[in-house]
């Protein structure tokens, strides 16, 4: 990657539709924030500064899912300008909570219920989707919101041209490190086994079940989790909705297959 005249990489932080939690988490790195701004040329970061430049970029960090035509165009433009695109947060990686309407018709019906028949002047709404539906994504950093430690280590690695090293296992591994009792053994519906690690099993540390907010871990045994919860007496729709809440399109195939089997 090329560096600017001061020897720094040009970086942009962009927010699409979401809660701005990932951008906020970057601002929450109080002690490290000054170092982040020193280590790289943060060319664009709307939440943090007003003198933003939309030029060529080495790295673009993109938060949020695409839910309007305007965002789709903005994303395509970011991809054109950036050498490396990193999806930050569950919304950018998997679509987030707003991508829980897996079916387009269902989404359209709900949109109408909220906004009626009004025609939007500035941009057309589209069903919420993760950014890799529209562009090639180089790296993913999931989390709702992303975790501080994982963000700092990933930032450190990518500005040196290395790929991020994320945990390739589920929350259960972190949960065992923290020596928690398994909540599933207590018949509490926990999504730990199918959810990507990185949060430090924070909910279970607080005696509360994992809600799945970091999205599905690769190679998750979804069928096994589903069967286990069924055996514990939970209702088919309840489990389906629970698994779909944060994973957006990440669960679509699996849930689609389930639907097929049910019929």
């Amino acid at each position, binding site marked *: 990657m090329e560096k600017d005249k001061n020897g720094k990489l040009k970086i942009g932080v962009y927010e699409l539709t979401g809660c*701005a*939690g990932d951008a906020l988490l970057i601002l929450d790195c109080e002690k490290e924030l*000054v170092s982040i701004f020193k280590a790289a040329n943060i060319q664009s970061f709307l939440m943090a500064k007003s*003198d933003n430049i939309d030029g060529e970029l080495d790295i673009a960090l993109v938060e949020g899912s695409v839910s309007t035509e305007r965002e789709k165009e903005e994303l395509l433009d970011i991809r054109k300008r950036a050498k490396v695109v990193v999806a930050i947060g569950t919304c950018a990686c998997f679509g987030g909570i707003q991508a829980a309407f897996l079916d387009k018709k269902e989404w359209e019906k709900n949109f109408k219920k909220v906004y009626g028949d*009004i025609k939007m002047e500035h941009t057309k709404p589209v069903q919420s989707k993760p950014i890799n539906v529209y562009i090639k994504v180089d790296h993913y950093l999931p989390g709702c919101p992303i975790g501080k430690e994982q963000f700092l280590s990933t930032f450190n690695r990518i500005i040196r041209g290395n790929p991020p090293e994320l945990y390739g296992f589920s929350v259960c591994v972190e949960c065992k490190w923290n020596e928690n009792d398994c909540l599933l053994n207590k018949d509490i519906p926990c999504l730990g086994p199918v959810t990507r690690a990185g949060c430090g099993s924070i909910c279970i540390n607080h005696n509360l079940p994992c809600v799945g*907010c970091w999205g599905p871990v690769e190679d998750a045994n979804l069928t096994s989790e589903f069967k286990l919860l069924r055996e514990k007496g939970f209702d088919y729709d309840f489990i389906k909705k629970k698994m779909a809440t944060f994973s957006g399109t990440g669960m679509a195939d699996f849930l689609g297959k389930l639907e097929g089997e049910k019929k």
Partner: protein
Amino acid sequence: MKKISVDHLARVEGSGGISVTIDGKVVTDVKFSIFEGPRLVERLTLGKTPEEDVNIVPRICAICSISHKYAAIRAMENALSVKVPSKVVQFRELMHLGEMIESHSLHLYYLALPDYVGFPNAIAMASEYELEVKIALEMKGFGNHIMKTASGRYIHGENPVIGGFGKFPSKEELIWIKNRAIQFMPFVLKTTELFCELDYPDSPEDDTIYACCNPGQKKYGFAGDEIILSTGEIIEKEDYKNLTNEFVVSHSYAKRSRYKGEPYSVGALARVNNLGERLKGKAGGMFKKYFNNRWKKNPLFNNAAQALEILYAFERIPKIIDKMIKLPDPPIVKYTKKEGKGTGIVEAPRGLLIHSYEVSDGFVSFTDIVTPTAQNAEDIERYCCIAAQKLLNSGEEDKIRDRMELVVRAFDPCISCSAHMAEVKKAPEEDWKTKLDKIMKEGSPIFIGVGNRNRSDDGAGIELALELRKHGMKDILLESEINEREAPWKNRNYRPLIFLDAVDFREKPGKVTLVPIHYIFSNSALSHRLLPFISDEMNYERLKNSFVLGVQPKSITEGKKISRPVRQALIRVLELIVN
């Protein structure tokens, strides 16, 4: 056509913009747009369990995530008749104070202050105010620490649940927080003085209605069961729709609110205006020292109000912790009810936040969430219009863009709640023709001629009205014919009203402008002598449908005839209306 634009409103949370259209010397339109895409969060919660709802809704906004969780929990506990023990109440207040400190310090030092000391961002500001920026960061970090202790992590922690908390902090952790709060006091006092003494420009000043939670008799605070207005009215939380009256506009995915047809404001400034008298201790002292009439009508003082609230929070924390450490950790309260309706209201850092639910057979069957920024949107537009018009009058057009951003930022909008960009547009020269054509197509307007025929061009409005009559047009009135009791604006059928008048826009003589009537009222320098009393008598719907078709006079000397450029303009208008 001229357009001054800031394409993305920076240093606010989320994606939105503000645009102002200028026709000559008049601001003709202001739009606060929210580009943040639609997320349909309310619909996403349907069919979920109350617990799952409480997991989902804080994701509306990262900055107010605790407030969303708190409001949702209050609403659900209300619906499911869950009563929580005192320690839970105390711990919830503590977590909420953490969010207030975090959000207010982030807004004041990172987002707002750089404008007042002339830097593009807080990092650049640190070059000159290194110590202040560092301590401010630590103060914000302290707020984060409380939030993390209470909820499990900085953002979207899941520890607060319906019926209590998954886990309580140890006595040692609580005492550490108390001592740290006491240590911060000197800097907190400095912060309050700094933001109360900032030089706030007076351009966006006008009266409004302020609304906030009433935390109980004689108490200051951030949660309650009723809404209190600056008019003295009280609204029960279940009747919140009487306040909010939400509606959709086509330039924003965030809904809008008006109270009795009027825009209103929520946030720290609303709380300080409505409840400030109740502040005690050092915060009470600072309130008495700094509060004045300008706080009642200038949204920029929201910054001062937030600083005052940081002080309030720091004084409150040791008291809560003293109570908490005496109480045992209660288990989560279990409930059996599967049905019910409930509303929960809290003050998010940026204002009144309402969650309302219905639970049927154990699942959410109705959800309504009203966010503070959605309620502020109408007032944000109104104050931007006022500020832009005043600057235009004083010939400081180049300042409009920055001033509007200052106003928007002062409201501390949390655009994710729904919602980047300040934009100033110039209307095209012949814009009045298109507008008039549109009004006439949408409904048949009543024309009202206004002016004085003895004073040359000032008689233009009357002259035009009489000419229209000669051409056989109906519904033409003269100023002198209007009976106050049966005035056309009292009619509820809301046909458009078009006042015909000579209006001094400081333009070249004969220039025709068509503007909504409230753009004339919002500025005394332009108001000519246009029936001033009607501004009080018109409601918002009526105002929206009333316009002034103004012609720039050349002279208004007594006894002279109408000047040539004005006469030519009248002929142009006449032709358009008649045809």
